[in-house]
């Protein structure tokens, strides 16, 4: 404190009171002209400081001497020194809190604009005087964080797992605040010290964070911007929460408390604290877990009633009625044919909840075919596994990006990275275009085989190429009546192609960014698409603008699927959550968290009750839609799961992955182990049985061909597709 200063070096000192200058008064004026402005600023800053600390005599002295040089006489050096010494680097908690209070007081009274400019030369002055958007000395963030860490380590075991959930969101928010306020070096130091402590499944996000060092970087990264503005949800039991609250408030660690209040949402539940494994199974997503309220809406997961079809053949009647009764939940009406139409499944939506297209004659014929095929269906189970037929795309040079089969497995479509869509006929029947208008007027419209006559034999071929997109095609979907094909691409459009003329009919523009997936509704007419703009859109083929927009995800939507009753849409996203949306009003009715990687595939069970999802972490998770719970996880794949399909009756779940295997799982067994008592339903804490090995029925390897798509034919033969990868 007694350091001798002259005009220049005095600026570097840490709030050393200026009385020492008295010794070098001669030197000061000499230096004054060169650094006059800075001295003025420093002067004013020191003046304010002394005033605040009620060092009136020092203030007077300073004022008196102000014009001459900078030295008030004597300030009680100890106080000033003590105050100055509490600046950066101190790890003493009491000083920290006092500095904190002073900082907050100072930032409110930072009315002196000029002294603020002297900030560069006197870091602590700038700290005191510049206006922050939030409180807190950046260099103290490390202190706060390690303080919290110490506390949590000292707490009882049962609470520790729950409170450890706080580490990740606090870490990210503190880091982002440091970056946002341009404290690069402190941010880097903070990151280096504490990033290694975080959970392994956050590694990807941490890597993204590490590349974000300046405020400008944040502007383009909408995922992190959303993270900053949305609230990270944590589920903590009441006891643990009380502990935490008490600790933070008695410590006066207001900074952490502020962050918690502003950026975190703590969903408190009454009951036993959760174990580490339970927490791990549900966390991993970008926004924490789902609030309990999010999963409370009633979801109509039952199937719609099949319409009555007068089947022309006589002994089909019995099977027809039985087939219609089959998908319902435990309907005891295989005998009576009349009463069926009266009773309504309580879990099924009304027939007219959303408008659906009426059945045309061709649709009715299709349905009859479907019922006939269904009678010949093989019943699958652990003893009788399906045969698997694999369609390998050769010479695609890693360009195959999407595959779809029609429901009756007669056509196969492939979307490619060279922006073409190719349609193949899987059966010996070739693909034909409709004749031109001139030729059509020549044919006899009354003849029985008019549907064959309208086809032009000259154009018969096994494969048709559809040109039109200007970017790789990432999603393809056939319509249920086999008349249309949808394709979604990186150019931001979704195109509707006619399979009669093999030309493009409509290009739906709405997403301006790559559209990663699209799917027709099981009844046709509606389709859903989701892409990079984090919004899924519901369209109808005869509207050029979307009917519904499902916004809420924090990152790209990678997978979109319709529920079998067409009333709900499930979307899987790169933010590691799955959301279930109601088509009627666009609300998000379920949020499922638990995956540790972006979700690439979804599959609804044929009875509509369950949802299966696969992601880059290689796990397949099963969800109960009605209760909103995770039922089980199927571990086995070692690489991204790209394809999931339930068998026609829901007994077997097939999964295909980048690790070149197709695995079959016993779905009935996996669903049997669900415990749905009141507690688990209320809190969502299901204990997952680790039965992956028993549930796995078989693993089938391909020859270095990743499996992209799976499809069960109507008779329960499994078809799969992928492109041969020679590496």
């Amino acid at each position, binding site marked *: 404190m007694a350091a001798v200063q002259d005009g220049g070096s005095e600026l570097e000192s840490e709030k050393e009171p200026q009385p020492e200058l008295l010794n070098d008064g001669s030197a000061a004026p000499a230096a004054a002209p060169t650094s006059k402005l800075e001295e003025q600023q420093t002067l004013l800053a020191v003046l304010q400081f002394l005033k605040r600390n009620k060092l009136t005599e020092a203030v007077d002295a300073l004022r008196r001497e102000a014009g001459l040089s900078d030295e008030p006489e004597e300030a009680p050096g100890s106080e000033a020194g003590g105050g100055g010494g509490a600046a950066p680097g101190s790890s003493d908690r009491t000083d920290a809190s006092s500095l904190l209070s002073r900082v907050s007081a100072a930032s409110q009274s930072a009315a002196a604009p000029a002294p603020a400019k002297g900030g560069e030369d006197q870091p602590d002055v700038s700290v005191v005087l510049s206006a922050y958007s939030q409180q807190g000395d950046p260099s103290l963030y490390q202190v706060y964080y390690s303080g919290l860490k110490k506390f949590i380590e000292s707490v009882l075991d049962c609470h520790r797992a729950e409170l450890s959930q706080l580490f990740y969101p606090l870490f990210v928010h503190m880091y982002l605040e440091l970056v946002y306020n341009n404290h690069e070096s402190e941010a880097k130091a903070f990151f280096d010290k504490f990033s290694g402590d975080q959970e392994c499944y956050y*590694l*990807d996000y941490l*890597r993204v964070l*590490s*590349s974000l060092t300046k405020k400008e970087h944040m502007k*383009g*990264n*909408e995922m992190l*911007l*959303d993270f900053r*503005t*949305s609230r990270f949800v944590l589920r903590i039991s009441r006891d643990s929460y009380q502990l935490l609250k008490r600790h933070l408030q008695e410590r006066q660690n207001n900074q952490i408390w502020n962050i918690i209040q502003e950026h975190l949402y703590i969903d408190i539940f009454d009951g036993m604290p959760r174990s580490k494994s339970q927490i791990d199974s549900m966390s991993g997503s970008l926004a924490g877990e789902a609030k309990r309220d999010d999963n409370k809406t009633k979801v109509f997961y039952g199937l719609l009633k099949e319409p009555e079809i007068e089947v022309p053949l006589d002994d089909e009647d019995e099977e027809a009625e039985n087939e219609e009764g089959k998908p319902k939940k435990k309907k005891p009406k295989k005998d009576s044919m009349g009463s069926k139409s009266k009773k309504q499944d309580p879990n099924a939506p009304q027939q007219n909840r*959303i*408008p*659906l*297209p*009426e059945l045309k004659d061709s649709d009715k014929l299709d349905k009859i075919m479907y019922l006939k095929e269904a009678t010949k269906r093989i019943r699958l189970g652990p003893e009788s596994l399906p045969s698997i037929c694999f369609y390998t795309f050769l010479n695609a040079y890693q360009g195959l990006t999407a595959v779809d089969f029609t429901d009756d497995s007669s056509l196969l479509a492939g979307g490619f990275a060279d922006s073409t869509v190719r349609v193949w006929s899987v059966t010996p029947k070739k693909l034909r275009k409709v004749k031109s208008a*001139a030729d059509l007027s020549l044919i006899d419209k009354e003849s029985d085989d008019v549907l064959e006559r309208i086809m032009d034999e000259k154009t018969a071929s096994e494969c048709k190429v559809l040109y*039109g997109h200007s970017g790789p095609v990432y999603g393809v979907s056939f319509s249920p009546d086999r*008349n249309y094909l949808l394709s979604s691409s990186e150019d931001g459009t979704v195109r*509707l192609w*006619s399979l009669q003329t093999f*030309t*493009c*009919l*409509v*290009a739906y523009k709405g997403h*301006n*960014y790559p559209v990663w997936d699209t799917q027709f509704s099981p009844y046709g*007419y509606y389709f859903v698409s989701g892409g*990079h*703009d*984090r*919004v899924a859109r519901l369209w*109808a*083929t*005869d*509207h*050029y603008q*979307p*009917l*519904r*927009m*499902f*916004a*809420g995800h*924090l990152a790209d939507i990678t997978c979109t699927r319709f529920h079998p009753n067409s009333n709900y849409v499930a979307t899987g996203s790169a933010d590691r959550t799955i959301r279930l949306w109601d*088509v*009627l*009003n*666009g*609300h998000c009715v379920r949020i499922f968290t638990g995956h540790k990687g972006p979700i690439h595939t979804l599959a609804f069970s044929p009875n509509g009750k369950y949802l299966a999802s696969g992601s880059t972490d290689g796990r397949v998770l099963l969800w109960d839609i009605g209760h909103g719970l995770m039922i089980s996880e199927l571990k086995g794949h070692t690489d991204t799961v790209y394809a999931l399909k339930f068998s026609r009756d829901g007994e077997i779940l097939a999964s295909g992955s980048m690790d070149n295997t197709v695995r079959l799982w016993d779905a009935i067994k996996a669903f049997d182990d669900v415990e749905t008592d009141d507690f688990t339903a209320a809190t969502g804490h299901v204990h997952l049985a680790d039965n992956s090995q028993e549930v796995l029925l078989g693993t089938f390897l391909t020859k270095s061909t990743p499996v992209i798509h799976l499809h069960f034919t109507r008779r329960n033969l499994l078809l799969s597709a992928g492109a041969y990868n020679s590496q």
Partner: protein
Amino acid sequence: MASPKTVPKDAQVMMQILKDMGITEYEPRVINQMLEFTYRYVTTIIEDAKIYATHAKKSTVDADDIRLAIQCRMDQSFTSPPPRDFLLDVARQKNQTPLPLIKPYAGPRLPPDRYCLTAPNYRLKSLQKKVSSSAGRITVPRLSVGAVSSRPSTPTLGTPSVQTMGNKVGTPVSLTGQRFTVQIPSSQAASVKTATPTTPGTVQNVLINPSLIGSKNILITTNMVSQNSSSDSSGSLKRKHEDDDDYDAL
């Protein structure tokens, strides 16, 4: 991967970037793509900055120009999707309208024609050589049927002879009709085929290139021997009896 000695420095920088971002598996072409992109981006920015500097009448390009250039390019090509609150707002508005009812018996359900791609994007130009509909003027210059072995003196279905034949037939040949047959009298056929063995009763159908006469098909039925269906009618499209090609008596 090429050994570090032979890899240029820029490529090494790219490999280091990929390593820092945690990407371990990538095709070797990715480095080239990154280098191309970097080069293109940097030159675009610097060119833009130069334009801004000259516009501000500065002699050298300075940091402000670069900053402005980056800002403008960012708004143009590297746009990012709209922020979440905006999307939620728009979605709420859109989701309030009830789903429209579906009209029954509507045929293919497509948006209004303006929004579809089904309109023709070409127009037909009218032909210069209008073929008139006067009787007998059938121009089929490139067809000769079955008379290859005969000497040219015998009438072949060339341009002039058809006319005469048509005249002989006397049937009013109208091009505006859709299909018509020109019956060549068997007597004449017999005279043609003196040199060749006759196989009576074979009828040969030949389809003449329709583009010459418009879009109508003209079917010319002759009673000539089918064996010598020559292949020198290079312009004709299809022969219904493909096996006749085997009997090329040329």
